[in-house]
C-alpha cells in the first residue's frame, strides 16, 4: 500500500552539526577553518563595485521572506497561489505578494516570482495577462520551467527578467545557450554540478547562472520524473482543485509528488526479492566549496525549499550569508560550516 501524503517538513528541535566532509563523503580537509572568520579581521579582497554573488532564499510565506531578508538574503523567490509548484500551503496570494514586495523594496532587496508550472493552452493567455499586471508591481524576475512558457513571456513582456528553473533540466553549456537564445535572463543549475562545469558554462554564455547550492538531489532529476502519476494520477488530480493540469509536479500537479522514491521498494531480481530499499537521494549543502563556485563565476547562490519553516529559512540563509561574507572578505577557497541543521532532509523541500 502506497502512502499518499502531502509534502511535509519533519520538525526537530535540536541543531546538530553534520559530520564534517565534502559532497563526496570525504572527511574535512585540515585547512578548512572550523569557524568563519569575522569580516572585520580580514581585509576585503573585493574592490568597491566589483560583482558580488546574490544570495537567493526561498519563502513559502511572508514570515519566511522577512526572516530571509533579516538573515542576509539579497532576494527571495515566492510562488503565486495557483501558478507555482510549491503547493498551495507554500504560495502567496496577490495581497501577500504585494506585501512581500513592499517589504523587499523598503529593504532594497528583490523578489522573484516562481511560475513554474506548465499552463494549459487555454490558461496561458490568462497567465500572461496576470503577469503583466504583477510585473508592474516591481518583480525582479519570474521563474519558469517550460521553453514554451518562457518564450511566450518574453514575447509579451520584453523587459521582464526570466529565469529558466532547475526544472528546465539545464545541465551543460549548450543547454544554457539554448535558454539564453530563447530570452532567459538566468538559468538555474543543480547543485551537484562541479565548479569546473560551472566555469565552462559561464565562459560560453552571457546570462546569469544560478546554482542551487543547497538542495536535495533526488534519484530522478527535477523536471524529469513522472513516477508518482504513473502510480496515482487520480490522486494528483484530486489534490489539484484548481485549473491546473493533473500529473507530475513538473506539469503543475500540485501535491502529486508523494515522495514515492522515498518509500520502501523491494528489489526483485529474477523473480526473487533480494533487497528492500528506497531510491537514493542526498542533501546537498556545498558551503565547503562555496569559494570554488564563486571563483567559477556563479552569479546567484540559490537555496531550495519553499516548504521550509520561516525559522529554518532564516537559519540556513544566515549560514550562507556568513560564508559569502567570509569569502568576500578573505577570498577563502573553502569554508567548513560549524554545523548545519540535520532536520532539513529530503522531506523538507
Amino acid at each position: 500500500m502506497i502512502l499518499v501524503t502531502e509534502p511535509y517538513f519533519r520538525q526537530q528541535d535540536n541543531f546538530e552539526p553534520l559530520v564534517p566532509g565534502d559532497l563526496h563523503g570525504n572527511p574535512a580537509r585540515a585547512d578548512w577553518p572550523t569557524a568563519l572568520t569575522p569580516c572585520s579581521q580580514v581585509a576585503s579582497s573585493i574592490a568597491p563595485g566589483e560583482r558580488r554573488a546574490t544570495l537567493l532564499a526561498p519563502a513559502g510565506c511572508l514570515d519566511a521572506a522577512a526572516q530571509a531578508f533579516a538573515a542576509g538574503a539579497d532576494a527571495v523567490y515566492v510562488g503565486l497561489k495557483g501558478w507555482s509548484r510549491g503547493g498551495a500551503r507554500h504560495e502567496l496570494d496577490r495581497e501577500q505578494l504585494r506585501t512581500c514586495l513592499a517589504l523587499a523594496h523598503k529593504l532594497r532587496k528583490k523578489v522573484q516570482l516562481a511560475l513554474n508550472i506548465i499552463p494549459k493552452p487555454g490558461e496561458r493567455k490568462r497567465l500572461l495577462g496576470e503577469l503583466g499586471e504583477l510585473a508592474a508591481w516591481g518583480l525582479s524576475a519570474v521563474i519558469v520551467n517550460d521553453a514554451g512558457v518562457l518564450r511566450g513571456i518574453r514575447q509579451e513582456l520584453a523587459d521582464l527578467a526570466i529565469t529558466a528553473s532547475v526544472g528546465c533540466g539545464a545541465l551543460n553549456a549548450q543547454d544554457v545557450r539554448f535558454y539564453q537564445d530563447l530570452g532567459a535572463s538566468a538559468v538555474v543549475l543543480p547543485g551537484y554540478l562541479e565548479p569546473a562545469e560551472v566555469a565552462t558554462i559561464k565562459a560560453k554564455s552571457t546570462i546569469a547562472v544560478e546554482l542551487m547550492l543547497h538542495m536535495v538531489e533526488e534519484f530522478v532529476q527535477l523536471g524529469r520524473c513522472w513516477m508518482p502519476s504513473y502510480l496515482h494520477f487520480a490522486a494528483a488530480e484530486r489534490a489539484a482543485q484548481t485549473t491546473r493540469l493533473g500529473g507530475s509536479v513538473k506539469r503543475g500537479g500540485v501535491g502529486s509528488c508523494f515522495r514515492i522514491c522515498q518509500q520502501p521498494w523491494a528489489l526483485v531480481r529474477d523473480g526473487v526479492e533480494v533487497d528492500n530499499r528506497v531510491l537514493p537521494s542526498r542533501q546537498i549543502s556545498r558551503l565547503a566549496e562555496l569559494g570554488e563556485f564563486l571563483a567559477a563565476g556563479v552569479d546567484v547562490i540559490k537555496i531550495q525549499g519553499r516548504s521550509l519553516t520561516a525559522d529554518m529559512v532564516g537559519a540556513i540563509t544566515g549560514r550562507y550569508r556568513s560564508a559569502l561574507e567570509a569569502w568576500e572578505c578573505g577570498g577563502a577557497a573553502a569554508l567548513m560550516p560549524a554545523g548545519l541543521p540535520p532536520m532539513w532532509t529530503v522531506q523538507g523541500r
Partner: protein
Amino acid sequence: MQTFELNTTISNLRSLRETDLSAYDAVYLGNIYCRTFQENFLERLDDLREGIAHVKDRGLRAYVATYAAPRNDALPKVQKVLETAARAGADAIEVHNMGVLLMVHEQFPSLPVHVGGFANVYTDAGAAVLKEHGAVRFTPNYEISLDEVKAIADSVSLPAEILVHGKMPLGVSDSCFLLEYESKWAEKCPTVCQEDLFLRQGDWAIRPVGKGVLSGKDVCMLEHLPALVGAGYTMFRIEAAYETPAYRFNLAKIYRAAIERATQGDDTVDELAWHTVRQHTAVGLCNGFYFGRTGGEYVGSQGEMAEVRWTARG
C-alpha cells in the same frame, strides 16, 4: 500502400545484429540513459557507422538517439556522434536535451530532429519552440493524454510519434544505484542493468535501468490501434532498449499486422496476438497516460492484465 512507420530502439550493435528487423520500418540506435551501457552505440562510433549501414542496407530508416541528460563532459562525444550520423547518412537525430537540440540545429541543419520523450513537450507552445529548432516530429511527454497530443500536433502541424508497446520511461537520473550491488552480485556494470530487475511495492512495479526508471508494466495499445490510426497517427514505436531480440521481433510482427488491418478499417485483434503479448510481459499491461488516467492502468478487454503478476516471464 503503406502510410505508417513502426520503429524500435536498440542500444548496441550486437543486439541489432541479433534482431530480426523485417517487421520494422525504422530503428533508433543508441542508449539514451547511460554512457557505460554495454557497447552503447553512442560511445562506439565504428559500431554506430556499421549500425546505420546495417539498418539502411535492409531498406529501413536509421535514426540516431542522443543522451537524455548529458553534462558538459559528454558533449564532445555527442558532437562526434552527430558528425558520424551525418556522414553515415542517418535519417534523423532523436533529441531529448535542449543543448543537443541547439548543436544539431546550428551545426547539422540538414539533419531532421525527432524530439524525444524526455524533452518534455507538454503543450503546443513548447512544441512550437522545438519545431523552430528543426524538429520534424515529437514524442510527447509520456504523461499527457491522446487528446492533448492531438491538440498539440494539430496546433503546431508537427506529427507525433506514439509509444504503442513497451516499458514507458518514467524518469532519468544522474547516477546509477545498481552499482551498489556490484560487490554482491556476479553481474557488474555494464551488464547489471540488463538483468531481470524490478522494484516492487505492493501491487506496483517499476523497472530500474541504472540511470533511469521505466514502467514495470508494458504499455500495450494493440486493441486501440484502430483508434490511433483513425485519429491520424502514423508513427508508432515499440520501446525496447532493454528488451531481447525476441521481444522486438515477436511484438513487431503482431503490431505490424494489426496496424495494417487498422489502416484497412479492420479493428479485430487476433487472439494469438494476445498470447504473444502475455508471453513477453513480465508483470502486466497498461495504457500509459493516453486516456487521461493513472499511467499504470489498462483500459480495454485485457483488464486482468493490468494487475501486476510476478509469475509470468517473457
